[in-house]
């Protein structure tokens, strides 16, 4: 028996759990949550089994025809298997935790059903073997996120947040769909002879024919795909839904932010990395979006008071890191995929941990506002220390997971800087400082000091603490243990398809002749760049992390407090206000853009519609009606008139025929 023969069960079991929960969950204890946990856990077992079978140099590819030129299939390569392992693992823990967290909620069955479907959609997305199937699961993920963010749909703010998430990601999805159509058209136009079992939108087929597509088309496709990724992964300017998504239960936030939703965008870019690499400006755009988002979101994380919003901005920022990590692949090639996905996996561990810790705190304290917490650590030892591990990891403290993953991105951003442009590097360094500061501002102000309000003081039950501890172990040790083999393993990902990055790089215009020469000189140059020259570059992230933590401590830790935050930035400080307002995004997006520009345009369009489009149609129909109204007076109802008309008609006919005869003959 091979595990890979049962790969379809990884998705099928959570779907089964969804069906069971939604129909029978009401009768089961705790809403049938154990079904969801079991289904995901089975997925984890299967994933581990498949991993053992294919590591280190095999892939699984199963496919069957669907209709016309399309197929459904499963493709498990290194990129997919690490995602599968991460998603099943993290989600199993989150579901376990949710069994405690959602206990007593009347909608628990609905929660577990939707969560199971959410998991299934994400897993299906990860191991789809063609772009169309990926898109279908992509949309399912979007739907489930809508349902879960709006889980407490009686709360107007939750309903609004769900709508916002759905509509915002929709913008990206449309671009994604456009990119798929464009890609399909371009592939269909090529003289490809498909062997049996090959279909146009399958990833191996796409990889094999990227070089034949015109470069300008490649750029368009890449930008469309990036649009989809931007929407799903909450990158600027479509990041606005992510902080609002906090309206759902905390476990949903943990799922969305760590494992199941926002990583999909990064995964898409990683999956289509050869295409981005070949597209001129493709990776440049990715790097620009990522680096900007990383800094932009980090600044907003500095001022948020809601503990979950701090984490949300941090997610946006870290996703920016991942995007930038992929984008700087223009300089380092497919190695960037390994670096970026490594950060994705590490981030999912510590971000899930942080969210679940925050959930544990909120569960006890019953408020999201950090200004009302303070000193919680005295009552919640386990939560405090696990969250400390998560925070250290996020801040990039040496030897924690985040240190290895995030700092590697900064290092390759430096290499990108040497070859192409230093801007992403500068942005990422700045974002890294802010990350350390806002993370520890949060930790210090929640767990240290004295209580600032009267809140519930008790530790959470073990069904919630257990996952925290397991996640904490991974948030601490994963980076140290797995970094090197992980990079090697993911580096081999595109070799399975024979992707020729040199050829693609020439199309994309970032592997210029000079670099070829450098590559010809061998590892020497690269080795020098990585180890010899920039010692300061190697240790700068460490300095930054420590400095940021220290700085946060000076402001917020009562033991070493030197500065009063309010004295440095008063209530009326313009920068603070801008950050608190989130750069006036709400004002710009909603009040200015939506209510003025879009609504104004809509009004004008409405006028045009009424006056012009409807106008001439109404005029025409009015004219016809009037004409007919006059014409019908012919129907007098008096028989004599009819007879007269009849006779006159015959006379006219006869005359006409006679005249015609004379004229023609």
């Amino acid at each position, binding site marked *: 028996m091979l595990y890979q023969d049962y790969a379809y069960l990884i998705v099928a079991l959570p779907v089964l759990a969804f069906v069971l929960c939604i129909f029978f969950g009401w009768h089961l204890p705790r809403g049938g949550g154990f079904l969801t946990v079991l289904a995901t856990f089975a997925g984890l077992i299967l994933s581990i089994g498949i991993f053992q079978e294919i590591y280190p140099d095999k892939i699984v590819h199963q496919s069957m025809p669907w209709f016309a030129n399309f197929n459904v299939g499963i493709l498990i390569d290194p990129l997919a298997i690490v995602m599968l392992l991460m998603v099943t693992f993290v989600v199993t823990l989150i579901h376990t935790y949710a069994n405690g967290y959602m206990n007593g909620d009347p909608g628990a069955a609905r929660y577990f059903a939707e969560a199971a479907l959410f998991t299934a959609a994400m897993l299906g997305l990860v191991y789809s073997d063609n772009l169309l199937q990926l898109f279908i699961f992509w949309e399912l993920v979007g739907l489930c996120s809508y349902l879960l963010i709006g889980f407490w749909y009686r709360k107007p703010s939750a309903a609004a947040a769900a709508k916002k998430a759905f509509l915002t990601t929709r913008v990206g999805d449309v671009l994604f769909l456009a990119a798929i159509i464009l890609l399909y058209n371009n592939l269909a136009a090529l003289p490809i002879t498909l062997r049996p079992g090959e279909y146009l939108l399958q990833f191996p087929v796409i990889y094999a024919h990227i070089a034949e597509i015109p470069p300008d088309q490649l750029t368009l496709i890449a930008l469309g795909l990036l649009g989809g990724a931007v929407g799903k992964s909450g990158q600027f300017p479509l990041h606005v839904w992510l902080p609002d998504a906090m309206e759902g239960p905390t476990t949903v936030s943990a799922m969305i932010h760590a494992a199941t939703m926002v990583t999909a965008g990064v995964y898409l870019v990683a999956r289509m990395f050869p295409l981005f690499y070949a597209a001129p400006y493709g990776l440049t755009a990715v790097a620009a979006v990522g680096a900007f988002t990383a800094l932009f979101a980090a600044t907003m994380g500095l001022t948020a008071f809601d503990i979950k919003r701090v984490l949300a901005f941090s997610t946006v920022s870290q996703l920016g890191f991942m995007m930038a990590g992929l984008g700087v692949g223009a300089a380092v090639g497919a190695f960037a995929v390994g670096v970026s996905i490594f950060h994705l996996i590490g981030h999912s561990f510590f971000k899930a941990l942080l969210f679940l810790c925050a959930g544990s705190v909120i569960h006890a304290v019953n408020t999201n506002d950090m200004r009302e917490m303070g000193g919680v650590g005295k009552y919640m030892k386990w939560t405090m220390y696990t969250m400390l591990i998560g925070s250290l990891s996020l801040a990039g403290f040496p030897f924690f997971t985040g240190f290895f993953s995030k700092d590697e991105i900064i290092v390759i951003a430096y290499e990108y800087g040497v070859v192409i442009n230093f801007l992403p590097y500068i942005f990422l360094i700045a974002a890294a400082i802010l990350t350390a500061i806002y993370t520890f501002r949060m930790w210090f102000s929640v767990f240290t000091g004295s209580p600032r309000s009267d809140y519930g003081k008790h530790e959470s039950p073990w069904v919630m603490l257990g996952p925290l501890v397991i996640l904490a172990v991974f948030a601490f040790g994963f980076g140290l243990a797995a970094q090197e083999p992980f990079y090697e393993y993911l580096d081999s990902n595109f070799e399975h398809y024979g992707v020729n990055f040199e050829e693609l790089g020439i199309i994309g215009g970032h592997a210029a002749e000079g670099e070829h020469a450098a590559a010809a000189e061998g590892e020497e140059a690269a080795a020098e760049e990585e180890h010899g020259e920039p010692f300061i570059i190697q240790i700068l992230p460490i300095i930054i992390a420590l400095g940021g933590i220290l700085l946060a401590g000076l402001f917020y830790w009562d033991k070493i407090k030197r500065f009063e935050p309010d004295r440095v930035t008063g209530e009326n400080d313009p920068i603070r206000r801008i950050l608190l307002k989130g750069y006036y995004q709400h004002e710009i997006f909603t009040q200015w853009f939506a209510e003025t520009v879009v609504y104004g345009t809509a009004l004008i369009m409405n006028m045009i519609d009424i006056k012009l489009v409807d106008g001439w149609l109404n005029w025409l129909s009015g004219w016809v009606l009037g004409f007919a109204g006059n014409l*019908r*007076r012919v*129907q*007098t*109802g*008096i*028989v*004599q008139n009819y*007879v*007269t008309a009849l*006779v006159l008609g015959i006379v006219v006919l006869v005359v006409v025929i006679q005249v015609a005869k004379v004229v023609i003959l």
Partner: protein
Amino acid sequence: MIPLELYLLLASTMFTIGLYGLVTQKNGVKLMMCIELLLNSANINLVAFSAYQPNVNGQVFALFSIALAAAEAGIGFAILISLYRLYGTIDLDNINVMRW
């Protein structure tokens, strides 16, 4: 033998009278009579041509036409009677429900 032209003249005169009556008269019965004139002028034509061109087809056709006229008259008068019962008049100017 009376020349054919005279028959044709008679027939067209009858037809014209009938047509005139049809256009000008208001009374339903008079209209029926005018229609009879039209039909019979056609019959005269049929019989006349039949006699002058030794062929019995035209006369047979005239017989059919007479039978048709009888049936038509029967239906027409029945309609007029029911109109009279409904409106108390057979002046067709007053019976103009089938109009705009």
